[in-house]
């Protein structure tokens, strides 16, 4: 085992099961890798070394006893928006700097039950609001492919950790592209499942009608393995859906002959970099070569409204969700006053960063008396139009193919203090959350050494279709095997 840092889940599993490596050995080598490269990449908010080694030792006992699920003894990294019992969970916010959750998120419980080893918690944009990790209240994560560039966001720490070989896999959360955009920027595989496929219990809420948790992995097989572990109805999340969970790995290793793929023209937006458009052309040609029937020029005419719809709905929900940070029950609490209201206002003034405040303000405005119909209700109606267009497209096509992002990863600081410029980096991913459908980003090449992601979108609960196409493409191209030199 020469490069433990590049092991996928399924490769690690094979080695663990055949006792060629122990989980303790694997965990130690990944902790050493973190020590070596994380000062440069800065993917981790918290490294849980001692806990990881304890869990690894337990996993080794299970393996010795013949219990070896695909995740037993496999070290993973969790975005710091997921509650981990007794392990600091900050949401990369000063508001939760010392927060120790009293319970585990359902996805964490499920991964623990499968024998996962927790390596640590990954940096992110504060409260998952952002596209670069530059909104983290602590530090910016660097893209392992070019340390002067951002890894994308908000799950930028998770993506960078996986790309840099600081963990076998990660979980992220995706409200408007926060799994897929960083996956694309770091050349890894990131799936946003169908809304309701994975329980959100213990996911610190941003926009509850859009948020989903999903896997960020080194290849498509790993994505299917993690989905097998985390999917399913959970009584503690009433929006999780009671829909049968298939064995997603059964969708792998199938051909895509005759599958109908649509290329929606609205996703090839103005301002898209020519390198991205060129890479997409090559990727689409590859899908055709693999036997898919591709139709270009498909139209989803309401797509250009998605940005406005998203930036009304998401901040509105955020303004309600983040009302809980009042300095009373947990989190930062301003102490320098005897006035209840002043304490609350100061707690929120000093506890939240600028982007979080901006979105709370935006959402509060959109929901306030006199503006509700013009903004929030109008956005919800246009949301219906966007959903209907997807429904219609999926009557004709098995999946839609788009770029994940209109650009390659940008330089840290490049978007400056222009929130709209930053919001535009998510134009290709936002409509998917609005419609609640599943989508994956997989590596689709490079432009001057910088990663480009391809997005595959399917109808609700058709993750199997996505895996089938993604795996066929991945096996034909091998982009997932490329690793950055950190």
């Amino acid at each position, binding site marked *: 085992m020469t490069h433990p840092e590049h092991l996928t889940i399924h490769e690690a599993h094979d080695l663990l099961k055949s006792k060629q490596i122990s989980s303790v050995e694997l965990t130690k080598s990944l902790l050493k890798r973190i020590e070596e490269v994380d000062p440069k990449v800065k993917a981790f908010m918290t490294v849980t070394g001692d806990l990881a080694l304890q869990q690894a030792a337990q996993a080794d006992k299970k393996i010795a006893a013949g219990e070896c699920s695909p995740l037993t003894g496999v070290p993973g990294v969790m975005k710091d928006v997921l509650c981990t019992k007794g392990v600091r969970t900050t949401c990369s916010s000063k508001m939760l700097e010392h927060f120790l959750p009293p319970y585990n998120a359902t996805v964490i419980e499920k991964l623990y039950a499968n024998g996962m080893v927790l390596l640590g918690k990954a940096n992110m944009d504060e409260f998952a609001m952002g596209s670069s990790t530059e909104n983290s209240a602590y530090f910016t994560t660097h893209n392992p492919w070019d340390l002067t560039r951002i890894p994308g966001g908000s799950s930028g720490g998770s993506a960078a950790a996986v790309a840099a070989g600081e963990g076998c896999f990660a979980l992220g959360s995706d409200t408007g592209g926060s799994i897929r955009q960083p996956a694309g920027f770091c050349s890894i595989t990131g799936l946003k499942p169908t809304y309701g496929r994975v329980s959100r219990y213990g996911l610190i809420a941003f926009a509850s009608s859009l948020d989903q948790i999903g896997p960020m992995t080194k290849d498509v097989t790993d994505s299917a393995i993690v989905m097998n572990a985390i999917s399913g109805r959970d009584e503690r999340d009433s929006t999780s859906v009671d829909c049968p969970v298939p064995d997603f790995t059964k969708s792998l290793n199938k051909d895509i002959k005759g599958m109908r793929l649509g290329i929606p023209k609205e996703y090839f937006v103005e301002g898209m970099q020519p390198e991205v458009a060129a890479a997409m052309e090559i990727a689409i040609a590859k899908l055709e070569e693999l036997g898919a029937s591709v139709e270009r020029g498909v139209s989803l005419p309401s797509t250009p409204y998605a940005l406005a719809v998203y930036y009304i709905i998401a901040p509105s929900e955020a303004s309600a969700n983040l009302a809980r940070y009042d300095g*009373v029950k947990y989190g930062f609490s301003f102490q320098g006053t005897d006035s209840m209201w002043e304490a609350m206002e100061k707690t929120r003034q000093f506890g939240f960063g600028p982007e979080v405040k901006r979105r709370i303000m935006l959402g509060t405005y959109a929901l306030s008396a006199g503006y509700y119909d013009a903004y929030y*209700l109008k956005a919800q109606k246009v949301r219906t139009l966007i959903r209907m267009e997807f429904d219609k497209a999926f009557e004709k096509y098995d999946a839609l193919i788009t770029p994940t992002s209109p650009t390659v990863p940008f330089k840290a600081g490049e978007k400056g203090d222009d929130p709209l410029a930053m919001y535009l980096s998510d134009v290709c991913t936002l409509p998917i959350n609005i419609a609640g459908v599943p989508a994956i980003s997989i590596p689709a090449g490079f432009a001057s050494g910088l990663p480009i992601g391809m997005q595959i979108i399917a109808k609700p609960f058709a993750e199997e279709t996505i895996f089938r196409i993604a795996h066929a493409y991945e096996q034909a191209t091998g982009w997932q095997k490329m690793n950055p030199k950190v």
Partner: protein
Amino acid sequence: MKLSREEVLHIAALAKLGMTEDDIHHFGDQLSNILENFEVLKGVDTEGIPPTAQANSVCNVMRDDVIAPSLSQEEVLANAPKRDGEFFRIRPVME
């Protein structure tokens, strides 16, 4: 459309967000610019289109009210900035 200083202060008060003078100017300009970009929605014909609050069809989920273990008082209070025995301690609400 440009948000006035009064509007910014009104929203901040509704959101219980303390603001510096700089914040008021800064957020005022940025929010105005963002809201201006949202004007595109006004041109969309949504006559007879119902709103979508959530994308999947699940609604009114019911379950039996079963007694089950919950967090202990100690766990619930463990992150409290200020506590008084088994209570969260807050400042006087009525003056």
